[in-house]
Every structure is written in C-alpha cells, then in structure tokens.
C-alpha cells in the first residue's frame, strides 16, 4: 500500500522509539546515543531496509557477540529486566541490518514491543507515557501495513509474470487505511481504559516474587546515610524528583506555600569518626524487629499528632529509609511492607518490594518541655583540639560553657547560640576543596581555615561544638521540603534537596532540630526562583503528579471511588460476592445499581461517541455526492463528454467493464495492461473527461473532436 522506502522509515522509527522507551525508563543516555548512531548507520547502509542487507555471516557474528555479552552479565549475577532489555535492544539494532523478508520486519516489530514492556517494567515515568502516545498509533499503522506486505509477498512468491507494484497507491485505500487505523487505535484505547479501571487491584500482589513493580524513576541519589567530610567536589544539583509530599493538618487542611519549608529526616548519625558521621552500632540500640504487613505503626511516645504527611517515594529500594518529620508518632501504608524503627531516635527503615511506595506519617510538631528530671545523658566529646574554644566563642559569654555549671534549661539557649554563630560567620558553598592535610580534622579545618562549605560541614561543626560543651547532638541527613506546587497542592522533593542538619538533646530524651546552614543560602538552594520557568515547571509538575497519582498510583481505593464499590472487598472474589449479596439483601441494592449504572453509562457514552462519529462521516459523504448530482452547471458540462459514457460502453463490450469502485484513471491503467490500444484511447478520453468533471471547464472544439474521435475508434475496435 505504501512504498517500500516509506514503510522502511516507519519501521526504523518504531525500532528506535522502542529502544528510546527503554533508554528513557532506564535513564541511560549512553545507550540512547548508541542506538541512534547504530540505527543511523543501518539506515544509510541498507536504505531503511530496501537495499542489500549485510551478509548472514556478519549478522550471525553480531548476534553471537550480543548473546555472549548478555551471558557475561548473567555470570556476574542474575539476569534482570535491565540485562534482558539491553539484549533485546542489541537484537533490534542487528535486525535493522538484516531485513530480507516480512518475517524480519515482524521480528523487529515484536522486539520493539518487548522493549516497550521492558521499559514499563523498569520505570513508569511520565516521559514514558508521552513516548508511548506517539509510538502506539504508529505501531498499529505499521503492523497493519506489514500484514498487507506479508500477504503480498507470500502470494507473489507463487505468481509468475507479475511485476511488483509496490509504488502504486490508491487514494481510496490510503483513506480507508487511515480511518481504520484511527478506529483501531481509539477502540483499543477505550478497551484498555475499561480494563485498567475495572481490573481489581491488590489481588495477588507479589504472588510470584518481587518483580514487576517498577519505580517511577530510576534509583535516586542525593540522600546518603553517611557523611564523609574532607573530600573535594561538587554537591549534586540534580533536579530528579525523589518524592512527593502533601502536608495536612489533622482537620484535612492542606499546608503549603512558597515561603514554607519542612525537614524530612532520614538517617540519624550519632558517631563522629575520622572526619565522618555514621550511625553507631545498632546492637546496643533498641531497634524493633521488622513488623510485617501492619497498616499502622505506632512509633513515638504517646501524643496526639497535629500534622499528617502523605509521602510518595518514587523509587524505594529493597531496604531503605522512610522519611518522616520530627517527631513521628505513627506511620500507615496500604502497601504490605516490613517496617522497623529505632526506639530511641525513631529512625525508620522499610524492607519490601522495591518501587513506588506510598505512606502517611503522623507527627507532632509541638515542642515538648525541656525540663530535666535527671542528669544529662552522657555525651561523647569530640576528640578535636580547639573545638571547645570555638564553642565558647560562639556562646559569646552569654551561656555557661561548663556543663557542670550550666543549667540544663540553658542547653537549648547554648545550641541556639552556636547555630546562629555558624549561620552568620561562615559561607555556604556547594563546591568544596579537599582538606589540604589529610591528617587534619575536616570539621576543624572548616571552622578555622576554609570557613566555607556545604550543609554537612555546618551540621558537623554544630554537632561537634555542642558535644564539646557537654550537649548531646547528632547529625541528621534527609531532605528539605520547599518546592511547592499550587496546582497539585503538593511539595516536590528533588535530589538537590538533600540536606544535613542537627538534632540536639535539650531535655530528658527530648531532642530538637536545629539547622546551622545560613537561611538565605537555604532559601536560595531549596526554594525555586519565581518566574515563568517556575510556573511552567509547576504546570508540568502538576501533570506529572496527576500521572503518578491517578495512573501509576491507581489503587483499590481509587477504583472503589470510580465504581462505587467497597475497596476492602475486591470485585469478583467469592468473599466480595457474598459480602455484596448480603449488602444487597440488607438494602444495599443501590450499591450494585450504582455500579451497574456507572458501567452502563461509560459503555453507552463510548458507543454514542462512536455512532455519532459514524453518522457524521456518512452524512458528510452523502452531502458530497448529492451536491455533485444537483449541480446544474456540472450537469451541463458533463453533457459535452458523453463520449466518456460511449467509451465505457465500448470497453464493456470488449470485456473490460469498469467496476464502480474504480476511478476513471485507475480503470484506464487497468485497461492499458490488458489491451494497449484500447487503453491508450480510453486514457485520452479520461484525460479530457477529468478536465470537465473536476477541472470545472468546458472543452474547446478541438478537444471535443479529439474525445469523440477516440471514442469512435474504440467503437471500431469492438466491430
């Protein structure tokens, strides 16, 4: 139906799009560049598959190399979706050099579809959806064209004396193909929507192991559960989203704005050694065992929460930190997971299927009283010479530096003093030089020589300074929540929002967060600059949030909301059937009626749209035909070309009747194939007929004589 070259280009596009799907999902730009280069070479060498393919030996060697490469990866570990997808990508690229028959085309199409599936298994990013929107209609069109080519190729192999006529294009056929493609794409989209909505969620989760639940994006970086100071380099400014947060008061009011920011604590690091902070040995800590499949985890002390954070981790690893606001009281999640938390510092960890994870954190932001009823807990003083003096300097003589002489109520004041001293006297910088002397303590080097650094230096300095004057302190790593999206009523947290701050013990097991990073720099780094770019970013962020919430995050409760069913009872299960029957008997018939009505409404809507479209198209076509018949001027012009009708009659008598579906020109070509003389004469007639019928003009005397003569000669042929 279309030329070989046009089909080849479309097939190449599908192959490249399939590979790009996976590259986007895996965020592998190197692979994407490789694909584009190789596809370009293949297109040049083989002219999009219409030229000579590479020799079989070369193809076999390439396939062997790809297989060995994959087996090598298998030897290093297990074969996962990434390895398999890369292997298929290589196969697709090799097949681009080996297009000899429709079977090769079918293989490329099939492998491209598998690449799409591999991409879906890898990540569910919005960019993937955009690519799929472009790829699916093209894929449908190419598959349908391929079927025609395959059938023609098979039949041609058994016919003789038939010249391939791949360049002949019929406008009617192209129009029908376009319409059919649109109908198929729209219908399959509608069916997929219905299946997507109706299919129950929550059944069979991980029944066959932990696979198939991809991240929204690839593994995130930025957050670290260790702090290593003294190493030069640049802190990541990556804008890759990590998680989404919606903050609510307990009455459901959403909290948010451009001026607010919050802290999500991840790792609690309480041991400073060799210029770095890490978590002390958990064997001595009060860590709870892994709690399985509970929906509500009571963490903190008994208190009523005043804030709820709904957090969506876009890509939680198998075992990862859960980020909470200080002070977390409880966590709830509808996804079956194992959660464990530290009984002392409430660091929370999660173990379960990697991928997207949604949970709610209930926390209390009210500052507890910092009265002490007993002596301070022992403090592990830092082994850094000169730190105490700096702490005394920071206190400015307003607070007693000796813990034995200082009131415990003043610990909070002392911590505040140190925090402000650091904020006002040091410079924040994302880029840091390495400490010149490896033996020197990096915190001391920051405080005495460099006087500039990133948040980890500030946090380490404050924590060490507090400890030097007998105040317990620890470094917290996590994220700053500051980028507010008014369109989605959520905050977006990115890799660049990773942050470090300090928690200080200000009372009996009472800890409070302090952030020594200069506030102006904190704002500059974590709050996006207002302007048109921020607005556009918010817009796309809202779209992405909608994608994540309603498509990627479509779950049983959303489904229940649409269908009006009970989210606790999956539709279709025996238990649900019994429960629903009981509910119906108890007067819950309205539930079923509503669900049935919802389904019927959706079905009828789609049917109505389809019927209205068909009626509109049919009426438009009928109007076109009717307008031609009723046109008196056209009728008058057509009277001049009665020779065309005579010619048709002559052809019928010669056994060459014109079928109704063929245009005059198509029929002239067809006649020419069978009878050159008759075809030439009829072509002359048709040429002039077209001028009258479609060109809107009358014939000159010479033209009229010419058309009559051609028709007469045709008549003579019959005799």
């Amino acid at each position, binding site marked *: 139906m279309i030329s070989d070259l046009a089909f080849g280009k479309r097939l190449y596009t599908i192959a490249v799009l399939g590979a790009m799907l996976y590259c986007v999902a895996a965020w592998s730009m190197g692979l994407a560049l490789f694909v584009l280069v190789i596809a370009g070479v293949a297109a040049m060498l083989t002219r999009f598959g219409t030229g000579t393919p590479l020799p079989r030996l070369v193809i076999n060697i390439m396939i062997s190399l790809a297989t060995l490469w994959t087996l090598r990866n298998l030897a290093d570990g297990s074969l996962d979706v990434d390895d398999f997808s890369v292997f298929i990508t290589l196969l697709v690229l090799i097949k681009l050099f080996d297009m000899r028959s429709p079977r090769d085309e079918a293989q490329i199409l099939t492998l491209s579809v598998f690449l799409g599936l591999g991409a879906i298994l890898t990540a569910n990013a919005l960019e993937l959806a955009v690519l799929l929107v472009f790829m699916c209609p093209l894929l449908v069109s190419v598959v349908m064209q391929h079927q025609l080519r395959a059938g023609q190729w098979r039949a041609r192999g058994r016919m*003789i004396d038939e010249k391939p006529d791949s360049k002949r294009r019929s406008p*009617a056929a192209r129009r029908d193909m376009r319409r059919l493609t649109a109908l198929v794409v729209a219908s399959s989209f509608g069916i*997929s929507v*219905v299946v997507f909505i109706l299919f129950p969620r929550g059944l*069979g989760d991980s029944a066959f192991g932990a*696979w*198939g639940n991809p991240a929204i994006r690839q593994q995130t970086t930025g957050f670290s559960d260790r702090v290593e100071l003294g190493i030069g380099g640049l802190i990541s400014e990556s804008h890759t989203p990590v998680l989404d947060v919606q903050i609510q008061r307990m009455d459901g009011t959403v909290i948010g704005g451009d001026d607010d920011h919050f802290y999500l604590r991840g790792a609690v690091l309480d041991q400073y050694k060799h210029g770095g902070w890490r978590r002390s040995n958990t064997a001595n800590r009060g860590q709870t065992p892994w709690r399985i499949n509970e929906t509500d985890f009571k963490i903190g002390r008994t208190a009523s929460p005043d804030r709820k954070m709904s957090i969506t981790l876009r890509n939680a690893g198998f075992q990862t930190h859960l980020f909470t606001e200080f002070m977390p009281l409880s966590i709830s999640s509808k996804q079956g997971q194992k959660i464990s938390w530290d009984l002392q510092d409430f660091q929370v960890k999660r173990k379960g299927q990697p991928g997207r994870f949604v949970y709610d954190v209930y926390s209390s932001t009210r500052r507890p009283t910092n009265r002490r009823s007993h002596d301070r807990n022992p403090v592990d003083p830092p082994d850094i010479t000169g730190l105490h003096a700096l702490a005394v300097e920071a206190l400015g003589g307003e607070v007693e530096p000796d813990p034995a002489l200082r009131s415990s109520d003043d610990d909070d004041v002392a911590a505040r003093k140190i925090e402000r001293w650091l904020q006002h006297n040091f410079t924040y910088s994302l880029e840091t030089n390495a400490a010149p002397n490896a033996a020197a303590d990096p915190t001391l080097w920051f405080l005495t020589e460099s006087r500039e650094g990133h948040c980890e230096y500030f946090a380490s300095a404050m924590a060490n300074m507090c400890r030097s004057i007998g105040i317990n302190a620890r470094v917290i790593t996590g994220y700053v929540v500051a980028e507010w999206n008014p369109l989605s009523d959520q905050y977006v947290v990115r890799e660049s929002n990773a942050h470090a701050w300090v928690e200080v013990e200000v009372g009996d097991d009472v800890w409070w967060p302090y952030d020594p990073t200069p506030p102006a720099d904190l704002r500059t780094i974590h709050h996006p600059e207002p302007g048109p770019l921020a607005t556009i970013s918010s817009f796309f962020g809202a779209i992405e949030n909608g994608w994540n919430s309603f498509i990627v995050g479509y779950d049983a409760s959303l489904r229940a909301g649409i269908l009006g069913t009970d989210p606790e009872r999956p539709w279709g299960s025996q238990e649900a059937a019994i429960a629903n029957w009981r509910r119906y008997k108890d007067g819950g018939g309205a539930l079923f009626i509503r669900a049935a009505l919802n389904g019927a409404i959706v079905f009828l809507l789609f049917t109505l749209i389809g019927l209205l479209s068909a009626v509109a198209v049919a009426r438009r076509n009928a109007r076109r035909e009717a307008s031609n018949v009723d046109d008196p001027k056209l009728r008058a012009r057509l009277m001049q070309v009665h020779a065309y009708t005579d010619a048709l009659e002559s052809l019928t008598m010669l056994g060459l009747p014109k079928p*109704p*579906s063929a245009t005059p020109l198509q029929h002239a070509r*067809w006649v020419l194939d069978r009878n050159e003389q008759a075809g030439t004469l009829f072509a002359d007639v048709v040429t002039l007929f077209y001028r009258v019928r479609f060109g809107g003009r009358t014939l000159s005397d010479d033209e009229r004589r010419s058309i009559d003569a051609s028709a007469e000669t045709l008549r003579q042929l019959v005799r």
Partner: protein
Amino acid sequence: MPTQPGIDARIVRRYHAHMPGLLYIIVTVFLAVGAINGQNNLLFWAFGSAVGGLLLSGIVSGSAMMGVEIRRTSIDEVAAGEPLTIEYHVTNTNRFMPAFGLTIAETVRPTSKRKRKGEHSGQWGHSIPRPITFVAHAPAHGGASARAVVVPEHCGLLRLDWVTAVSSFPFGLVRKSSAMSRPATAVVLPRVVRIRPELIETLGSAGVSGSVTTNRLGESEDFYGLREYREGESLRRIAWKPSARAGELLTRQFAAPSPRRLWIVLDVAGETGAVDDIERAVTLAANAARQAHDAGFAVGLRVSGSPVTHAPRTGVSHLLNLLRDLALVEPRELDDRSPVGSEDTARNDAVMIVHAGAPREDLSAADTVLDATRADQYTLHEPAESQLPEPARGHQRRSSAIRHEVIP
C-alpha cells in the same frame, strides 16, 4: 469452452488459529500475571491494550470477511507450458468496513474420480500449481480485481471448484477464511512444439487439391461467377456472350482450389504405456494439426476408439475444436475393441497416424506415422512460438490467448 454449471451459493466461513496468535495470547497472559504480581498499573494498561488488540483483530477481520464475495471473471485458454491467467473480481458488500489483505486461492476439492492424465482435479502439487493471488484493498461497497497466473505442465481439463479468501488483517493474530463454491472448468490445450516441417510438406503430395469446388474466390479452373470488367484485366477473362446480353463487359471469376485434406488419427486406445508417452502423442497430433493448418491443409481428426471424429476443414475455430478434443483424450475411456479405420477417409486424403508405441490402426494405410515414444525425432529443439493461431474475423481476442468469460 469453459463451463460454468451454476454458481453454488455455499459460503463456508471459518476462523483459524495460528502460531502468531497463540504466541500473542501467551504474552497477554504473561502481561496479566506480571501486572497482578507487581500491581504495575502500566502493565495493566498494556494488558488491556493487548486484550483490545485481540478483540479488534477478530472483529475487524470477521466483519470485513462477512461481506466479501469472489467470482472468477475469466479463465484463459492456453496451451500447456504457457502462463494461464485466472481473473477474479472481489466484491465487498459491507457498508462501512473495507477489506484489506485478502489472499485469494483456489481450494483443493477432490473430484469423485481421479484421472490419470488430462484432467486437473485441483489436487495442486501435481499438474498445475495452485492459483493464488492477493488483493490489498477492497473498499466498502466496492470491489477490486486480481489475477493469478500459473503454468500448467500438462494438457487436459482443468476443474476449479472452490475459491477461498483468507485474511489475517489487521494484526495477523486471527486468520479468517471465506470459501465460496465457484465451479468452473477450462481446457488446457496441448503444448506447442515445432514439428519438423518436412513431415508436413511430404503430406502435400498425398492430399490432392482441387478435387472439390469451393465457394471462395481463387484461381482454380472452376467457374465461380461473373462481375463487371475492370480496366487492366486480362481480356481473356471476358465472358463475351453474357457481356453482349448484359450490354456491358463482364469477366469470369473462378473458385479457389480446394485445400489438401489431411486426416490425423490418434491411436492411443488401450495404451498401457507411460503417461508421458500418451501426452507426447497428443502433443504431436495437436502440433501436426496446427502446422498443417498453417500450411493450408484442411485438417480432420479421428481418435481411434472413440466417437471423436472431425472431418477435414479449414478455419481457426475448427482447429481449436480439434485441439480441445485432443486435450481431453483419456486413453482409459477409449474402446480398444472398436473397429479401426474410417469410412470417412476419402481416397485422396492424406493420413497421419500418431501412436504411443502400440498402434491398433493399419499403419500401412497412413502416409505418415509418428511414434510418440520417439518424439524427439519429429520435433525441432528450437523454441516454439508460444502463441495460438490468430483468430478469424469476428472473434474477440485479448493478448495471446483466447479468453472465455466465466460470468454467471
């Protein structure tokens, strides 16, 4: 002439499972399992799309095939070894749904008797490749034409029975076929070969011309008629007495001499030899008839052991009748006990006997005897013209074959 005993309205529609569809179903099931296991919503969507594709594949192909009707519009009459063209016209009676990707093929439908030679029962793979063609697009409420070209290797009766349209459009998952009963027959004429010209030329002295007065103008001595004199003509032709009576000069016209008469006797009754020998005998007889006709003979045919007898005549249509009867010769149907010879043979007629190794006829009565088992001695190994004789005036003709309309 090809026959069309009547179109049977039977249409058999079927769905066929094939490997791509089965693989597709397996992958769809895998998608469902993966979606349920991982609760991956995009996999649910992919599963829904796969289900949609399967449903639409069946609906589109099924609804398109429901309105498809096929008829043969023409079957060429060709000689063995020449391309035989069968033309089809596909009509799509669907109101909205166009039909795409139709493979049209003749379907195997064995006849009740399996013929040894000559009759092609549609058991493709033996004497005629299976005709198959492809229609890319048949618009809704419209039609399309296509043709299949095959090369029959043997002469005989070609029986066509059912025509099948198969389509796996749009996705190749489901194959739907629609078989229509369209019985028709055609004759494949004997292969065209070049016989040594001297075999025909020697017959020239045997068949005496001029023994019969013809009703055509010519230069024989037989009086034909009178017409007015034209300037420049020979004065010897003027008929003086009739001219005096008529008052104007009239000249005599004379009839054409009668052509030489040749009887070709095919003697294969009771032959138990190789099928190829019998076919060679038929081929020799046919080409002898053709070349003798071209040489101006009035050619007649007698098939020993059968009532097939054609008195010597001239004319293309007569020749074609001879060729058809030769093509339809079946030795098993010949009566090897029937008397030999014929009373129709005139004394001056030339006789050529063609046999396949076991003649029954009296060979001494023949002017020329051709033994098909030694056919190489009679034929020239140069490419023969692959054309049948030019038709006489009044006959319609297309390309190099005589086409017979097979339109109900």
